């Protein structure tokens, strides 16, 4: 199911068509193969240039599998993904340079995504050195952009709070000047009082740098604040997609309605 009608192919930046991903469980019998798990079933998705697209689902919905495929960290069993017109499935890593330069990821837990033995300077510069790009003054520039002091460069990740670490992860992701930022539950591990700071920062950077954002979350209300469009996933399928405001106001699929009803809110407390 296409995520939203009326998408013009010319401004499509990421086009995924009929993606399937089947995992095999380890075999439990000598004579029979392990059970197959359909992590994704015929998922199609288009993200346009400059769009902020949210992917919402619970554990086991396939959102992480889809994300891994979009970032070419895993290969689909069948289907195709085009990034800026180029097919990315089936390519060896050495032919994915255009993707690595243009698409960067911010993970959920900055404690496990930042190497504890590297200084912030090297962490932020690593995507550049890995791609053979000049570092120059880029680290200072990036730290400033994410609201960290210049002297942060000489320190280690453990010397920062959760919110500051997520700022470091964002600076690192922005280093090679990507077109697309993929954020996988970037605020789920943060305290409420810090969450707003990171969401505001992401919104500012996406605006200023004209980024395309793919934002994965289990929380539809966070997606509603950040994104224009959304895909709701369940059991490996996109069950509903479209403009966030439409989905929020009038969820068409019973699962989306259930999801919306289940989220505890502070509404009623003015």
């Amino acid at each position, binding site marked *: 199911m296409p995520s939203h009608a009326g998408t013009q192919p010319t401004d499509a930046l990421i086009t995924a068509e009929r993606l399937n991903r089947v995992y095999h469980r380890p075999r439990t019998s000598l004579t029979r193969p392990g059970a197959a798990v359909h992590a994704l079933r015929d998922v199609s998705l288009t993200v346009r240039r400059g769009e902020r697209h949210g992917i919402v689902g619970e554990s086991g919905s396939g959102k992480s599998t889809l994300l891994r495929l979009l970032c070419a960290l895993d290969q689909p069993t069948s289907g195709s993904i085009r990034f800026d017109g180029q097919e990315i499935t089936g390519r060896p890593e050495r032919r994915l340079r255009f993707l690595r330069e243009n698409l960067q990821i911010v993970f959920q837990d900055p404690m496990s995504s930042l190497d504890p033995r590297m200084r912030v300077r090297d962490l932020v510069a690593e995507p550049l050195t890995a791609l053979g790009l000049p570092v120059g003054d880029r680290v200072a520039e990036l730290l400033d952009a994410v609201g960290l002091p210049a002297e942060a460069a000489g320190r280690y990740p453990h010397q920062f709070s959760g919110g500051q670490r997520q700022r470091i992860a964002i600076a690192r992701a922005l280093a090679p000047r990507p077109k697309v930022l993929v954020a996988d539950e970037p605020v789920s591990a943060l305290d409420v*009082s810090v969450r707003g700071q990171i969401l*505001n920062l992401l919104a500012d950077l996406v605006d200023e740098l004209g980024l395309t954002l793919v934002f994965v979350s*289990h929380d539809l209300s966070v997606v*509603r604040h950040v994104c224009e469009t959304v895909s709701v996933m369940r059991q490996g399928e996109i069950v509903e997609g479209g403009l966030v405001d439409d989905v929020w106001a009038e969820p068409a699929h019973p699962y989306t309605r259930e*999801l919306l009803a289940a989220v505890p809110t502070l509404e009623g407390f003015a």
Partner: protein
Amino acid sequence: MLSVEGLTVRADATDLVHDVSFAIAPGERVGLIGESGSGKSLTALSLMGLLPEGVTAAGRARLGERDLVGVPESRIKGLRGDELSMVFQEPMTALNPLMRIGAQVTEVMTLHGRSRQEARARSAELLERVRLPEPAQIARAYPHQLSGGQRQRVMLAIALANEPRLLICDEPTTALDVTVQKQMLELIAEVAPALLFITHDLAVVASVCERVLVMYGGRVVESGPIREVFTRPRHRYTQGLLAASKLTPRGTRLPVIEGGVPAAGRFPGGCVFRNRCPHATPECETPPALTGDGHAFACWHPAD
């Protein structure tokens, strides 16, 4: 029924929880909210006599006529899992992976003096009470064969086994999906004899509890009936936390509390929130007392 007075939890020379007082009546559901490092879990662990090595509690906490703080482990052991019990955040680490579910539910009853036969019969009832489908089958299963939500229901069955007077839940639904969380919250609210519910999620606490204690920097900074505290917060921290919890429409700035939660022992003297508070004045260098009847707050410059 539970009364806590001047509870202080200390590691070396650092106060991690400072002078916390509250009470819970039978049948009452009280929420304890705060961000990481606020001292909410330590408060609960000190009531359970489960503080980590090197961390000590002082002050007074009584469940009915029985003291919980400053008594030897041998005395607490008889109460824990019997008169008061606790459900933890991570059901995978709280359950023994090598024991069948049924045996883990009966164990807590035989440990507190019930006959094996009686415990076994009751464990089937308990699994049914927490609305596990096919309780007989679940009793024979191992923890890894259950989903996260099912495991947490088993934890609740174990906690309820000896009909405790007080149930403590520490972030019981944080690791669960929202649709599963909703069922679990409804179940907890229904079965808890009296509840101390710990969470960082204000919306969750609003759906379960009647009264709330807001902790920050190891202190209770505000307390009162949930409706009052959440509609008319007085402490500037509570006010900021509520504002930050509501997600405004796209394209608008989210209200934030500046800075981050300091590490343990790094909170400022006086009002613990003053280094992040937009209303702080030199007066805030003196610690404000928690004052007020019903709805209490510890702030020199409260919101209207």
